[in-house]
């Protein structure tokens, strides 16, 4: 970064040097808000994660300590959930990308000539937001339950074994995650593809690239900002999701993700330090993964 600053010093637009009081004043509400509702809970969470049980206390009573052993405990107890969380989130992100890219390409590029169709399809992508995602996920549970028309028909056609279930399987959880995050993937993809200059694609095919190579070498790299934004918007919330994997929705006992474990520790087991430690681990892991991803995808000069 420092070198870049040296070489393009002349081209850099000069930032206003005067730190104006008005700017500070305007920033104040935002800073206050962040301190109150982000920094304070974060510090509190960190402190909670290091608490130790109160001696001779009741269940759920803790005292401040530096009990880093909590982290080791939750890691050993819940490492399958941690791995599962990121595995499911990754799978859901990949499926959502595979599903959304053609959709976004159709809306943003193919449908450019028909603006009405374009807006209609965008509305259809956004439409699910009008209903709470809890209700939608419950609806999927109904549709895919063992007694549902879909599953009984599949069983009647012998496409599913007589004892097969859909709800409660990892596949159902990944399906639910994918379904719930598709709009978050489609919209950023659409915004980059909608601005995609088709003349680059023409230039590519003029330079002997077949349609597949044009897609791989030109369309994909040029839509990278949308891909990065969409995958982040899907992966981060999906990794911490506790609704889809929950037993009350599409999950089962073997599909519990970190969110479910945190919920159980916090609300059922009243083991606040473990819940807090898990939260911190989740946050740190996402930060590291996303950091590596953004660095590797090299989209800095495209963003």
């Amino acid at each position, binding site marked *: 970064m420092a070198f870049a600053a040296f070489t393009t010093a002349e081209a850099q637009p000069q930032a206003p040097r005067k730190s104006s009081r008005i700017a500070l004043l305007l920033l104040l509400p935002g800073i206050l808000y962040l301190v109150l509702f982000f920094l304070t809970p974060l510090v509190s969470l960190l402190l909670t994660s290091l608490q130790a049980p109160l001696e001779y206390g009741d269940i759920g009573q803790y005292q401040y300590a530096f009990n880093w052993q909590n982290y080791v405990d939750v890691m050993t107890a819940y490492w399958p959930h941690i791995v599962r969380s990121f595995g499911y989130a990754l799978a859901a992100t990949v499926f959502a990308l595979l599903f959304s890219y053609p959709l976004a390409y159709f809306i943003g590029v193919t449908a450019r000539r028909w603006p009405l169709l374009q807006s209609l399809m965008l509305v259809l992508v956004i439409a699910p937001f009008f209903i709470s995602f809890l209700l939608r996920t419950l609806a999927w549970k109904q549709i895919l339950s063992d007694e549902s028309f879909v599953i009984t028909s599949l069983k009647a056609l012998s496409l599913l074994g007589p004892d097969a279930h859909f709800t409660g399987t990892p596949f159902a959880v990944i399906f639910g995650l994918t379904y719930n995050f598709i709009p978050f993937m489609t919209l950023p993809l659409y915004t980059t593809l909608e601005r995609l*200059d088709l*003349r*680059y694609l*023409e*230039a*590519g*095919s*003029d*330079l*002997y*690239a*077949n*349609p597949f*190579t*044009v897609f791989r*070498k*030109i369309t994909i*790299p*040029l839509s*990278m900002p949308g891909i990065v934004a969409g995958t982040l918007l899907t992966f981060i919330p999906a990794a911490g999701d506790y609704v889809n994997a929950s037993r009350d929705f599409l999950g089962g006992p073997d599909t519990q993700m970190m969110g479910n474990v945190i919920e159980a520790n916090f609300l059922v087991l009243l083991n606040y330090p473990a819940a807090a430690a898990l939260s911190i681990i989740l946050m740190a892991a996402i930060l590291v993964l996303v950091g590596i991803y953004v660095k590797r995808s090299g989209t800095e*000069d*495209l963003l």
Partner: protein
Amino acid sequence: MAVREFAERGADLELVGIQKRFPGFTAIQDLDLKIPAGSFFALLGPSGCGKTTTLRLVAGLEEPTQGRILIGGKDVTSTRSHERPVNTVFQSYALFPHMSIIENVAFGLKRRRIADPVGKAHEALRLVELDHLAQRRPQQLSGGQQQRVALARAIVNRPALLLLDEPLGALDLKLRRQMQLELKTIQEEVGLTFLHVTHDQEEAMTMADTVAVMNKGAIEQMGAPAELYDLPRTAFVANFLGQSNLFAGEVAGSTDTAIAVDAGGTRLIVPKARAHRHNGAITVGVRPEKVSLHTEAPSPSPERNVVGPGRVLDVSFSGVSTQYLVDVPGHGTLLVFAQNTGAGPSVGVGAEVWSSWLVEHGFGLEDAAVETERFSSDDSTTSIAAQRRDDLVAELGEG
């Protein structure tokens, strides 16, 4: 599969009965064109005349509604763009923003799996004197540099046919001249066939061996630049390629070698060989630099056509020459370019002058001179104002 080898030499291009219709309008109607191998061919026309569409048809970016396209004798009408031995320098350059300059230039070579793509790309960049910027991104280059990269990216592939879509439009005059020269040199060195689309008539005339003037989806006239300039066939060509003074008239008589035209009472002689029509209504034209001015009526002679007397409306000095706008009653306005050699008379605004030109400099057009309106004075605000005043005076007089 795609062309794996460099073209040995330029190929000839043939368009047979091409028609291109878009929903709502016809861009090209019945176009026949043959461009010989190794030539520098310019397609000249105003915007919207179908010249860029023609280029896109040849490149394979559009499909013709009707007709066939042959490159080097091979029918490529149904061949897709990436399989045609053609490269284009786009008007917008279309350099890939996510690749460095060298990656841009090597792109086509890599797709064709040609040996040593990077080395050849560097060579092409040296040709356009930009090798030192090979690692930069297109956005970091100036418009002129981007244009040269676009050119390098196309010629590095040694296509049988190079298409240029107004590639010099965005450059300033000096750089444009330089690039014109470079293009011409490259074309002669490599022997490629160039198809250059432009609306700049000067560029077309200085660079091309053959110029085709296109208007409303059809070619009006085609030939060597000098030939086209000297003997335009239609009023459109006469006015698009340089400027012309046009006179509408009737053929009044003819000999074996010449016809006499009665244009609003003035008798104009045109050699038969230089007239595209020999009877009926005809438009006679002459280039402004062929016309000379006289301060007194020249004696009638069979070698010169004389128009006048007229009044000088405007004089504009432009260094090497002076442009006179002469209003001749019954003919409209006449444009005269006089070289500032000190030989001719120098006249001021309002002077009474006669204009004359050698019979062999005139030409007879095939169609009526619709475009002559360009030179008539009715659209000037002073004449409209004068007309209004006259009308008012007449009205008041009646009342």
